[in-house]
């Protein structure tokens, strides 16, 4: 391969001489400056937070996507909150049912002991007091 950094032959020398730069046509500068001035100035420095793309279609698409994400986020939050409320309600109902069943069992036991001539305190050496309905609410 020819070494370009070394001696050029006559053809290349003439090529280099012939291929001189040429000036642009008259009025080039004026036409260029006119175009430059008619352009919307671009802001110096870029936003460090978020730079929206310039193309309107793309910008609309991005705006729509952000709005959809926000709606999805709010909806998801609301659905999660309602699910938690439903779980809490179910747990409360289960607790009440359990308490009712326990009261019923105690009543049944107490009645059986009374029939046998005993009381709960005598049987277990402790004093067991059955809560009244109003007291149950306060205990919960």
């Amino acid at each position, binding site marked *: 391969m020819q070494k*370009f*950094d070394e001696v050029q032959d006559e*053809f290349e020398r*003439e*090529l280099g001489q012939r291929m001189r730069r040429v000036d642009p046509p008259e009025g080039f500068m004026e*036409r*260029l*400056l006119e175009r430059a001035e008619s352009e919307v100035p671009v802001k*110096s420095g870029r936003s460090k937070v978020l730079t929206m793309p310039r193309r309107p279609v793309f910008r609309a698409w991005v705006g729509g996507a952000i709005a959809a994400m926000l709606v999805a986020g709010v909806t998801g939050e609301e659905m999660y909150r309602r699910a938690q409320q439903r779980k809490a309600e179910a747990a409360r109902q289960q607790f009440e049912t359990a308490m009712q069943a326990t009261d019923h069992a105690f009543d049944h036991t107490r009645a059986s002991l009374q029939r046998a001539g005993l009381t709960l305190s005598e049987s277990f050496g402790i004093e067991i007091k059955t809560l009244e309905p109003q007291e149950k609410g306060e205990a919960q």
Partner: protein
Amino acid sequence: MQIDSIKFRNLVEQHQSMVFSIALRVTGEFGVAEEVAQDAFLELHRSSERLESEDHVRFWLRRVTVHRATDALRSRARRPESAAEEWMDEQHSEGPGAGLDFGIVARLDELLRTLPEAMRIAVVLRYQEEMLPDEIASMLGQPVATVKSNLQRGLQLLRRKAATTMKEYVRAEI
């Protein structure tokens, strides 16, 4: 480097012949070349904050001009490659004294336009801008070997075309 209108005007004055000449020799059309040159300078006007020095501006302008010129060529579907490849045929073998005479020199730009795009760009940057192959490779993002190959093949084609054109020229004179 922040650009203002005075600085921009100075940069245009300083580089306009370089930009316009690259655009003209790559596109081969005066009107297209002016459009390409203006586009390159307008891009400089918009992007000047990123440019750090005069050398960087020159390098950047050359690269943008070449890219805009090739874009313009492609959009106009001006593809002389197929015609130029015919010149690679052995029947146009290089003669011993294939130097340029005045008549051929006068038609150089015309011959240059018939070169394939990659070869034409390499030849313009090498002989108009006096850039070395590794500088051209760096600017175009190509391997140095590719640039050297394009230069060598471009020169070879130019020699053959020049030799043939000269024969036709001499025949016409007779």
